[in-house]
């Protein structure tokens, strides 16, 4: 059970050489802005592809340009919380959270029940009927987190998931991430306290990537 990334990705000014082995549990990615933290998440998500090398998840090759293998995002059984939330503006908060389950073939009412539970777990029950344009930044972020959790993913990818959540709301969500049932939780953060929660710390800086196991 490991996610192994060995390879290289270039996007504009960014030139990342990756050599990572992520084990089940919570991994934090830290580093300065523009260092490529988000790109690593997008790579794991299948929204970016490696230029060279291989990405393997639990022994299955999902991205390998030399052999032409690329498993697209929708087939990777993961969920991602984007820094800019990316809620679907035409759906209520509840239906946003239900969306991943609907895509897996569950009927509307089953998906909504499941979504209501996820909204509850992030303390956002009251937002269920609201549409994203009427949500504040912190509220949107909670709904986005609920959507990711409700997907029951193998890998939960979080890009600065607490950035716009008010400080009072953070402990609940931190607890949620560190006890996430996802096999892999990968958390991009600026906050060194958040990073301390992780089992594994990945530091990205100027194209250099270091991985340290924490106890």
């Amino acid at each position: 059970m490991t996610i192994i990334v060995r390879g290289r990705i270039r996007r504009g000014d960014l030139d990342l050489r990756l050599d990572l082995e992520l084990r089940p549990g919570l991994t934090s990615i830290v580093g300065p802005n523009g260092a490529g933290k988000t790109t690593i998440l997008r790579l794991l998500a299948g929204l970016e592809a490696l230029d060279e090398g291989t990405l393997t998840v639990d022994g299955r090759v999902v991205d390998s340009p030399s052999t032409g293998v690329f498993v697209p995002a929708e087939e990777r059984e993961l969920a991602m919380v984007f820094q800019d939330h990316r809620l679907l503006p035409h759906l209520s908060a509840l239906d946003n959270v239900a969306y991943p389950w609907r895509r897996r073939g569950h009927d509307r009412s089953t998906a909504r029940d499941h979504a209501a539970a996820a909204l509850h777990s992030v303390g956002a029950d009251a937002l269920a009927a609201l549409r994203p344009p009427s949500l504040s930044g912190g509220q949107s972020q909670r709904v986005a987190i609920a959507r990711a959790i409700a997907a029951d993913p193998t890998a939960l990818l979080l890009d600065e998931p607490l950035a716009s959540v008010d400080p009072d709301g953070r402990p609940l969500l931190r607890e949620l991430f560190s006890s996430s049932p996802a096999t892999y939780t990968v958390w991009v953060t600026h906050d060194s306290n958040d990073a301390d929660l992780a089992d594994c710390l990945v530091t990205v800086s100027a194209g250099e990537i270091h991985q340290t196991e924490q106890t």
Partner: protein
Amino acid sequence: MRPPTRHAPAPLLIPAGIGLLIVAVPIIGLLQRAPWSSLAAQLTNPAVVDAIGVSLIVSIVSAMLCLLLGLPLAWALARIELRGGRLIRAAVMLPMVLPPVVGGTALLFALGRRGLVGQWLDRWFGITLPFTTAGAILAATFVALPFFVTTVESALRQNGTELEEAAAVSGARPLVAFLTVTVPASRESIVAGLALAWARALGEFGATVTFAGNLAGRTRTLPLQTFIALESDPEAALAISVLLLTISLGVLVALRCRWLVR
């Protein structure tokens, strides 16, 4: 204190006023001469009723074609990076600037009974397009499609791929993401594009008369009926003009007020 209102310079105001008059005077002239008392009678005259019927069928089917074909086309132009992308986009927009009669001529030589494609349609399927309602629909779609495509394409570009990515990581395949995310998130522009395309199709004259001719009950739409009536029955021409003007204004006002959405 607010600064005093600055006087607008006459060299700008005078041409601006003349420009406004060029648009307003013909409309006022039309309204002033319109046969208001006999309007209902004019518009229920059998020839006009036929033309209204043809116009409704032609413009609505054409607008539906714009939706069915134009939405995927707008998506492809906005999302697929192609080497000749600019050229393709220019080609799609061409009917907006092309004289409609040239469009009609092109349609005739491409899809006419001896045309590039038309001869095969005729030989293999027995389909003849010129001088049929289907031909009129095709001509209207030819001129209306770019209005729909430009409106929707620019909205798709502006909306970006962020929501589609969010759908993908939620497990939506590209087609599902298109239908459940891209389309509903752009519905305002889709409705606006549809209204523009429909209005353009309704007003189409040049390409229609060239390619589909002027056959009562089949290809004689309201603009064609107006043109014919001008010689024989100017009052009827005025009445139809008032009807078309009202519809055009209605579309414009609806777009401005966003009555069409929500």
